[in-house]
């Protein structure tokens, strides 16, 4: 055995290493843990020096400490392994984050992108305000995610103290969702029947406008925009019939309805875009009803705006469903209950 402990290089480096490890350790256990690590290091150095037949150089001690690991990682091994959100709550936490992302972030981004396209001709004038609104979006997103994380962390801490993990009843679980081909066919058939009535109603409107605005049809006229969007709306109605027929014939192709609806949603988006670009939907037959026409125009504009938001949310949902169903089709071995 050599007297390595008296060698300045190893003592100095080991001392500095222990100091760095100690920085991350809890005060109550710090001295105890450091004493043990120190003893281990000195034993290791003694052994090595005994093998070498000389004192270790600073470089060799440095290599030994490097092999031991970064001080923060070494200290971390002695700290209790705790997670902010435990495995029991983590799936719910992720689900909530996904819901927030799906219902807030993605629609907001799409709306923002739509506004950017809408204002593309006046980009320079609107760019700064739109970029500002995007910055606000991220601030809100991070705040929401942060609050959700803190709430779940708090719930996790409370639930650890009040264990209710075993307190559940399997009989209270939701009933098994079994979507059979028959059920899909029946849903599609109902859609087909109502769709046919809807199409007939739609086709009758040009000749019988009271079918849509009631008695007001006698003193209000449709604005020219309806001549632009009428046939696309009819096309949408026919497309929904086609989808229903397809599902009745091929109910097993579960990827088709959501994929097809992506296309119809895009057509709907074109219609909404056309509606939002005009603010006159009905024209008064005389001056007496000009106020009523104005109110109706505002109502239709608001409805078009709401429709736009619904389309964005719908588009996200259809894309998600289409991807899910296509993946199931590509990986048929994956078991699923639906």
């Amino acid at each position, binding site marked *: 055995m050599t007297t390595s402990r008296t060698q300045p290089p190893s003592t100095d480096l080991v001392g500095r290493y222990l100091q760095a490890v100690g920085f991350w350790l809890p005060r109550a256990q710090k001295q105890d843990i450091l004493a043990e690590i120190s003893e*281990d290091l000195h034993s290791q150095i003694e052994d090595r020096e005994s093998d070498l037949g000389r004192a270790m150089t600073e470089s060799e001690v440095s290599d030994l400490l490097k092999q031991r690991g970064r001080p923060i990682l070494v200290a971390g*091994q002695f700290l209790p392994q705790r997670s902010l959100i435990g495995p029991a709550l983590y799936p719910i936490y992720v689900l909530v984050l996904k819901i927030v992302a799906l219902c807030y972030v993605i629609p907001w981004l799409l709306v923002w992108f739509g506004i950017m396209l809408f204002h593309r001709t006046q980009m320079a004038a609107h760019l700064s305000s739109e970029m500002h609104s995007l910055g606000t979006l991220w601030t809100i997103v991070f705040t929401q995610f942060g609050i959700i994380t803190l709430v779940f962390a708090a719930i996790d801490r409370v639930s650890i103290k009040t264990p209710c993990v075993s307190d559940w009843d399997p009989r209270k679980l939701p009933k098994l969702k079994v979507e059979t081909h028959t059920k899909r066919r029946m849903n599609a058939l109902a859609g087909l029947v109502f769709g046919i009535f809807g199409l007939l109603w739609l086709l009758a409107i040009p000749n019988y406008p009271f079918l849509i605005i009631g008695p007001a049809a006698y003193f209000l006229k449709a604005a020219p925009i309806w001549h632009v969007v009428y046939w696309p709306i009819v096309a949408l109605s026919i497309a929904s019939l086609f989808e229903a027929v397809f599902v009745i014939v091929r109910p097993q192709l579960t990827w088709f309805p959501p994929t097809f609806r992506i296309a119809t949603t895009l057509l709907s988006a074109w219609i909404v875009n056309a509606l939002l670009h005009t603010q006159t939907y009905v024209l008064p037959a005389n001056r007496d009803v000009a106020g009523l026409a104005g109110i109706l125009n505002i109502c239709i504009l608001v409805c078009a705006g709401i429709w736009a938001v619904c389309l964005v949310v719908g588009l996200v949902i259809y894309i998600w469903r289409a991807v899910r169903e296509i993946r199931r089709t590509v990986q048929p071995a994956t078991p699923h209950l639906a």
Partner: protein
Amino acid sequence: METEIFENLRLELRRGSLILAVLAQLRTEHYGYALRKALEGHGLAIDENTLYPLLRRLETQGLLVSHWREEDKRNKRFYRLSPQGVIVLYQLLNENEAMHAAIDRILAPIPSAETAPDTDPGQNPETALQPEMLEPKEQLQ
């Protein structure tokens, strides 16, 4: 990727075995470094960053007792099994034995079982358990 998966599974497999080995070795008193060397001598190398936190955890759980004592002019912390640790060790050994027996039974029908070598199969590449030996029977036929 496969190496990473194997490495993760190996670590998972080792974790329980290391606890068993440490408890078994501490039927006689050891200080940390001596314990590490002893385990290494038996072919079970253990990283110091794993060993010392493990010793503390086992002590907190009441399976080990420790005390500081001077030896070779240095203060060393000596560990040994507590009475509760002795009970738990034997329970774990029984569990380990049952687990190995079950795995042996699961592996028994494969052809290599009849020609299984006496030596550690992991040490000899010629007699080591090969992946194809573990293929399902249906695939072999």
